[in-house]
Structures are given as structure tokens and as C-alpha cells.
């Protein structure tokens, strides 16, 4: 096959609103790269987009097995999308294990593009198909549109004169698939060409081989009769004119911490220990030295948070990031931060638990730990992010509250948000809330002695940092006397300080926005109350329910402690409240306990997010029950 562009045969191009695509293959097949490239092209094309990678926790699980399947799912659309799609319309299966692992999530009638080399006897056996069975040809896929493509063979043909080793040639097969998908969705490949030249700056021949494989895939679509009946598709762009970037939740957290430090006029310090799926926050910030960011990869989770407490005491905007097991290790230090009353941002990227649990899978099961997981009376604010882009706004808000209210704040994300991505219209610095640290100024002769635990009307103490003349003081984990901060074991004083620390957190409710209704009527039959990463599935399901004329609304909590002041009133405006959560029912406990109401709990603890169909079914069932 030559590189020359052929005149395309006339193939029908059908317009579609949304498509969900899964690239799936063995961990070594380059599916993450293919998916990312496809997503970049779609984003630049101006489509609405949501992506979600799905890979095994082992770096190299046994090749060809179901355990080793790595997937990258994305949905792109000409209208806003909030999930990667409940089911996919198109599945690329590089091998039989990829097909086996994902078939249940393919729409009936969906398209399968199968790399036939991955369906040889050996691969079929590794994937666990019975001897002699081959799903591509035995009729078991009759409900789908199957395109068996000899991807490897065609890649080898395209690159036979490239001078690359056969191993290197074989590694380009994912680019063939990428090209074929570009053809199928009438997308341009020039962006990927640029990326390849940039990536292989020193090995131009590698860039050229990858591009050749991609073009081979693209023109294969044109040349083969295979797709004549299906035709090509076009998803018209939606995004308005503007500058965008694509971010994952973890990247957004890192950017937010840096932005908050700038806005507050503070240096950012992150003390952290690598843990899945939170590590990219540390990795991203380690690359932000240009912005003065100091990262410290500590020897363990405890040193991660304690070093941050030290930096916060010194006047930095200090943060630590972790996931469940790490948060468990940090709890004693969190208590110290509570009693020291210093600002600290703790980002917990939740994963399946308990213990090591499901390290690469999302879950919302750390809510109780965030709210209550400390010894003693140690309240602190808890807020939650609801989308990859929202990780920016939630983290920024956590930093604002920490600094302005002199308290540690836990910001909850999860493995789904952490790795998912969506386009984000570049934010302007002017739109970011002010963050004002309350530094105590130096004292002059004759001034009254400094009282470290003297509070303002919001019960917030001041931030007196070393190096400030006249403010030398000693604080610590022992209970302190009101105002002076000296050690005190006085019974009444301990009760007073306990109540003051709680009141300080409760009063944050005075300065946060009231709860709003995301979608739907202000009063009605059913309110879906969500928090965190369930946003996309709830949002989509409620949209669909409203189109059907159901009396249902959606409210999504950002502030879980303290709650917005009007939450009780909102909950009272509906006959029933339903709380979907990726845990065994945690927020529902808190709501029941706080407001003495009996919401319906809807839970899923499978290490995978809700999809919109599940939520919609539940809504339909609940409304039926309410009617009867």
C-alpha cells in the first residue's frame, strides 16, 4: 500500500449525535495511547467528550488473558455528555480476551472491529473459549455487526519496507486501528501526525512508521468492501469558539492546588507518598516547579501528611494526596492538624476497599472515614468533586476553606474521576475566588502578648508563622487553654475547646453557596441526591426521565460537611429522596441522621461506576411505587 491518497469510493456518511467507543486489547497492545490520541482528535474537532481508561492493576498481567485486558472508553457527541457511555456502540477488540471481557457492555447491534490475529487458537484458549469455538465465525455474535480485520498482517504489509524490526512493526498495529477509526468517524489524522513527530523528535523514522500504519488503517476503510454497507459516520462538533484543554481529574486537582497557592500569594507544598489512583497528582505537581511548587515524596503516608503540617505551620499552602489505605494511615496526623488549627488540603482519591481492595477501581466508600475517621472529637470540612473538570473547582474550594478557616479539609475524588478526562474551557484567573490568608502581623514593644488561640467572630484563629517578630509561641497536640494556647487539662476548658472547634467548622456553612437543583422542578415527586462521581450518570438519567415527563429532580452535593444551610428545605420539597452511591449506603446514613428523613438508598459496590440506564430504571421503579 502506498502513502498516496487514493480517491475515496463513495461511501455514505451518516450523521449521529453521540457515539461511545471502546478500544480494548492486551495491556501491551497500546490501547491507552490509541484511546488518548483518538480523544485528542475528537476534542480538537470540537465534540463534547468524556473518557475513561480501564486497565488491570498488574503492570503486565499474563498476555492474552482476560485479566490482562486494557481498555479505553470514550463517548463523543454533538451535545454535552457526562459519562463515557453506559454501553458502547463500537468495540475494537484486539484479541479474544478483550472481546470476552467487554461484550456484555456492547449495545445489541453494536459494531465489533476484531483483530483476527488475536482470535487464533492460542489466544482463544488463553481467553478461555472452549476448544474449537471462535466467536468471530461461530454465530455467537449474530446480534452484532462484526468486522474481522487482519490488523497485524495489514500493518506488517504497510511497514515491510520501513526498516523497523518485526517487533517494532508489530507494535504499530494500534496505529492502524486508530487510522481505521478516524476513517469511520470522518475525523482528520493530521493532529496525530503532529503528535508523532513531536514524540519521536529524535527518531523520525519511528514517527513516520507510526503515521504510515495509521494512514494504512485509514485507507483500508476506503479500499475494502468490508464497510460498504455500514458506511461512515459524522458527529458534528458542538463546542463554542474558545480555548480548551483536556484534563483528567487528577490533573485538575494538581492545577487547582497550584492556582490556589498563586491566588493566595502562598508557596505550594505537597507532601505525598505514591498510591493508586492518586499518584498522578504528585507526578503532575512535581513538574510544576516553574510555578514555584515544592513537592516532597515522603517515605510513607504519615510523613506525607506530617511534612505538609510542618510546611503549613511555616506559612505554605500545604496539601497531601492519597487514597483510602493512605488516608487511614494519616488519621492521627489529621487529628493533630485539627487541634493545631492550621490550613491543610487532603485530597482522597477513593478506590475499592477495605484494605488493598480494588486498587484501580472507583468506589465512594471513604465518606464515613472522611467525616468520622479520627479519634476524639475532630470535625473537619468534607467536600466532593463530581467530574474531572470539577476536580479543579472542588480542590480550589478546599484550599480556600482551609486557608480562610484555618482547618484541614478533605476533598473527595475517586478512581473514576481521577483517570477520566473531559474538555475544559480554559479558566480565567479573574474568575477564581479570592483566597485571603489571615497572617498575624509582627508585634511592637508595648503590644499585648500574642494569643495563638484567640478567635475571630467565625471562631477562626490567626496564622502566626515563624520569622514573625513578637509572635513566638508554642503549640501542639495537647489540649490548649482557650486563647493563650498553653497546655491545659482543665475539664471545662477541654469541653469549651471541643465545642469551639466544632462551631468553627459548622460556621463555614455561613460562607458557602446554598444547595441548588441541578436539573428538574423545584418541588415534585422524586429528588435524586448525589455526591461525587455519580454526577454524570445521574445527570444523564434525570435528563432522560424529564424528557419522559417524570416528576424528578437532581441535586448534587459539593459540601458534605457542613451541609449547605438550605439542604433540609430542599429535601422537604419532594415526596421521596433517592441517594445513589458507590458504597454500601453511607451518605444515606448521614442524611437520615441529620434530617430525620428516610431516603431511598441505591447502591452499587462493584468497582465500576453507575451507568445512566441503571439510575433511570431505579427512577422509573420508584416513581411507580410512589404512584401505587
Amino acid at each position, binding site marked *: 500500500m502506498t502513502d498516496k491518497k487514493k480517491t475515496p469510493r463513495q461511501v455514505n456518511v451518516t450523521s449521529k449525535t453521540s457515539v461511545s467507543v471502546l478500544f480494548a486489547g492486551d495491556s501491551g497492545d497500546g490501547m491507552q495511547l490509541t484511546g488518548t490520541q483518538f480523544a485528542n482528535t475528537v476534542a480538537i474537532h470540537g465534540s463534547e467528550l468524556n473518557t475513561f481508561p480501564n486497565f488491570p492493576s498488574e503492570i503486565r498481567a499474563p498476555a492474552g488473558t482476560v485479566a490482562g485486558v486494557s481498555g479505553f472508553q470514550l463517548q463523543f457527541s454533538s451535545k454535552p455528555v457526562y459519562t463515557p457511555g453506559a454501553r458502547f456502540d463500537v468495540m475494537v477488540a484486539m484479541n479474544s480476551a478483550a472481546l470476552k471481557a467487554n461484550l456484555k457492555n456492547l449495545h445489541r447491534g453494536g459494531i465489533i472491529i476484531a483483530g483476527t490475529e488475536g482470535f487464533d487458537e492460542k489466544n482463544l484458549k488463553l481467553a478461555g473459549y472452549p476448544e474449537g469455538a471462535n466467536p468471530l465465525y461461530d454465530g455467537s455474535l449474530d446480534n452484532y455487526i462484526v468486522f474481522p480485520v487482519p490488523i497485524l498482517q495489514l500493518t506488517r504489509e504497510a511497514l515491510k519496507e520501513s526498516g523497523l524490526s518485526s517487533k517494532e512493526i508489530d507494535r504499530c498495529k494500534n496505529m492502524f486501528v486508530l487510522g481505521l477509526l478516524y476513517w469511520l468517524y470522518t475525523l482528520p489524522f493530521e493532529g496525530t501526525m503532529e503528535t508523532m513527530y513531536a514524540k519521536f523528535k529524535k527518531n523520525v523514522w519511528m514517527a513516520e512508521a507510526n503515521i504510515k500504519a495509521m494512514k494504512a488503517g485509514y485507507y483500508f476503510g476506503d479500499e475494502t468492501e468490508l464497510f460498504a454497507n455500514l458506511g461512515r459516520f459524522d458527529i458534528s462538533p458542538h463546542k463554542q469558539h474558545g480555548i480548551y484543554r483536556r*484534563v483528567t481529574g487528577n490533573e485538575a486537582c494538581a492545577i487547582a492546588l497550584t492556582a490556589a497557592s498563586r491566588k493566595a500569594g502562598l508557596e505550594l507544598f505537597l507532601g505525598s507518598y505514591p498510591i493508586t489512583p492518586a499518584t498522578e497528582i504528585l507526578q503532575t505537581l512535581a513538574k510544576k516547579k*516553574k*510555578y514555584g511548587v515544592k513537592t516532597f515524596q515522603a*517515605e510513607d503516608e504519615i*510523613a506525607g501528611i506530617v511534612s505538609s503540617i510542618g*510546611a503549613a*505551620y511555616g506559612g*505554605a499552602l500545604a496539601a497531601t494526596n492519597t487514597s483510602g489505605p493512605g488516608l487511614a494511615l494519616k488519621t492521627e496526623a489529621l487529628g493533630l492538624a485539627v487541634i493545631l488549627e492550621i490550613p491543610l488540603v487532603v485530597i482522597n482519591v477513593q478506590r475499592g476497599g477495605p484494605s488493598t481492595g480494588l486498587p484501580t477501581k472507583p468506589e465512594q466508600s471513604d465518606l464515613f472515614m472522611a467525616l468520622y475517621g479520627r479519634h476524639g472529637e475532630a470535625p473537619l470540612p468534607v467536600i466532593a468533586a463530581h467530574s474531572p473538570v470539577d476536580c479543579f473547582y472542588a480542590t480550589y474550594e478546599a484550599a480556600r476553606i482551609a486557608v480562610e478557616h484555618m482547618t484541614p479539609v478533605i476533598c473527595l475524588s475517586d478512581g473514576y474521576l481521577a483517570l477520566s478526562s473531559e474538555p475544559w474551557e480554559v479558566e480565567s484567573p479573574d474568575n477564581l475566588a479570592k483566597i485571603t490568608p489571615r497572617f498575624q502581623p509582627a508585634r511592637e514593644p508595648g503590644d499585648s502578648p500574642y494569643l495563638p488561640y484567640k478567635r475571630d467572630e467565625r471562631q477562626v484563629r490567626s496564622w502566626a508563622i515563624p520569622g514573625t517578630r513578637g509572635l513566638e509561641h508554642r503549640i*501542639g497536640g495537647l489540649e490548649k487553654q482557650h486563647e493563650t494556647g498553653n497546655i491545659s487539662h482543665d475539664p471545662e476548658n477541654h469541653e469549651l475547646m471541643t465545642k469551639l472547634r466544632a462551631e468553627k467548622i459548622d460556621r463555614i456553612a455561613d460562607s458557602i453557596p446554598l444547595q441548588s437543583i441541578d436539573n428538574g422542578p423545584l418541588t415534585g415527586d422524586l429528588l435524586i441526591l448525589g455526591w461525587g462521581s455519580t454526577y454524570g450518570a445521574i445527570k444523564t438519567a434525570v435528563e432522560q426521565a424529564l424528557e419522559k415527563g417524570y416528576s424528578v429532580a437532581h441535586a448534587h452535593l459539593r459540601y458534605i460537611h457542613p451541609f449547605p444551610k438550605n439542604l433540609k428545605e430542599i429535601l422537604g420539597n419532594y415526596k421521596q429522596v433517592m441517594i445513589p452511591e458507590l458504597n454500601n449506603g453511607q451518605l444515606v446514613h448521614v442524611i437520615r441522621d441529620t434530617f430525620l428523613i428516610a431516603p431511598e438508598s441505591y447502591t452499587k459496590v462493584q468497582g465500576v461506576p453507575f451507568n445512566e440506564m441503571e439510575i433511570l430504571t431505579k427512577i422509573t421503579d420508584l416513581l411507580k411505587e410512589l404512584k401505587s
Partner: protein
Amino acid sequence: MTDNDKTIKALTAPLTAKDFASDQEPKWCPGCGDHSVLQQLKQVLPELGVTPENIVFLSGIGCSSRLPYYLATYGVHGIHGRALPMATGLKIARPELSVWVGTGDGDALSIGGNHFIHTLRRNPDLNVLLFNNEIYGLTKGQYSPTSKIGLKTVTSPSGVIDQPFNTAALTIGSGGSFFARAFDRDGKLLRTILKRAAEHKGTSLVEIYQNCPIFNNAAFEAFATLDSKADNTIYVEQGKPLVFGKNKNRGIMLDGFTPIVVDLDKDDLSTSDLWLHDESDINKASILARFADDESLPRPIGVFYAENRATYEDALADQIKDSQQNGYGTLEQLLKGENSYEIKSAVV
């Protein structure tokens, strides 16, 4: 006099020990070695040329960790074992501060053991005072990771059976850049060592043999009394031969890697035949560190090892400076990122 007044005075008159005393009465037991360490510190701090507001004392939990409360500087009494990472975070955030850590054998070597080794290898510029009394005092007399084998305590009624840590060897083995040993009872020596620790750029680990009169009294008696001290300890000084004994007539020679005690009077040797102390020699420092495991050798005191190497906070600051060669990143640049794209056609 309030802390505030003291600071103001600091600007006008030379500082004295009194300027570094806080208004809190030390709550250590009468006769505790910690009182002496506090006294020596208050003597030394005014001589460092650093004003109180630029000094921070951090600590973990234990008797020694009460130290910050009694000094009129900034201070944080943290959680058990974690003073070192707190100090590291503070030092990285505020390299210009003089940061000190008060810790004990339980705090630093047991619950904080992991932080101990990692802090030493990273080498932030901290002054770490490890009060070693070979016992848990605050929790009332359990054995510690430096308690001697056989010591009977409430948790080892039949005697300790685990091998104690050798603090000096652990420090050097962890990549520490400074190790010194001192005694609570020898104020002059302690002041000298404290000053050396303050001057050393990097993590200065000072092990202070400190008597707990309640739970482990006289653990260091052999090195402490006037009678026994001269024969049982050896003060190591840079460039000087290793001489000890009441009459300064005993010395240490190296036979290969093995230290041997010689008698200068009897063995027909002069001081020029002896081991010359070299603080920059890590091999010799390692041998000195092992003296504590051999009862036939005198216990070394003084600065064993001092190495000049980059501190963690300086190395990080250099990297930050390098990455800002083309200018300090702006908030606009941060928000825009490096892979942003423009969508020109607006199709609705």
C-alpha cells in the same frame, strides 16, 4: 517579660539565656537529665546570631519532646515519632529558619524509626537532639530500642532479649552527614557539641546520653562519675590522637580495621603512633560507632563524623530555580496548560 519584649530587646542588646526561657515551668522530674540539656541550650542559642523568631523547635512525644514548651522560640509539640518529617516539611517551605528537633530513643528509633533513616539520607539542615535514656519514661518504664540486653523492666520482667540499636552506626549507615555524642552531665562538652551541630549544614544528629533517675537510673554511670569517666570515655577531637585515661596515658591504635587499646607508658609508644581523629573519614567514623558494642573500649564522645554535602532543601531550590530560567510561570499559563487547543468554528 513577655516573648514579645524579649524579641524587642534582642534587637537592641545582646541576647542572653534568659531571653530564650519561656514562661512555662519545666515539668520534668527532679534530677532528670533533660533539665541540663535545656540549660545548655539556653546558653548556646544566644550565641548563634539568630533571633528567637527565626528559631523553631519541633518534637514528637515523650519526656524529651516537652522541650519546645520551655524555649521562647516558635515551637510545635507534634505526634509520636513524627517530628522529623514535620521538621523536613517546615525546612523545605522555609529554608531560612533555624529548625531544631527534640526527640528520644523511643520517639526517634522505635515509632519514628522509618522517618529517622530517611531524614538522615535526605540531609535537610536540621539540628536533631536525640535524648537517649535507654528507657520509656513518659509511659513509665518500659524498655526502649536502645535498652541493653538483659535490662529488667515492666515489659521485660525476665530481661530484654532484643538487640539494641547502635545510634551512631544507624546514623552513619543511613547516610547521615553528622553524628556527635554528648552527656547530659557534661555541660561544657554539650555546649560545644550543640554549637557544632548548629553550625553544620545538613542533618546534625546529636545523641545525648541522658539519665532517667526514675526508671533507668545510672544507666550511664560508668561514663559520668569523675572516677570512672576518664577511663571509660574518650573525647574525639578533629586532628588529635585518640588519647584517654586519668593520666592521659592510654590510647587507641588501629590494627587493620580493629581498634586496640594501648598503654603509652608501657608499650613504648608515643601519641604520634595513635589513631588521629578525622571527622571526614566515614570508615573511621564507622569504627568509632562500633566502640559502643565492645565493653573493652572506651565510649567515644564528641563529633564522630561531619560531611559537607548538599541539603535537601537547597537541592530542591536549585531545581526550582533552574526550571524558572525562562521566567516564573504565571497563573494564566498554568490555567491554559501546554496542550490547549482553539476551537474556531462554532457549530450549534
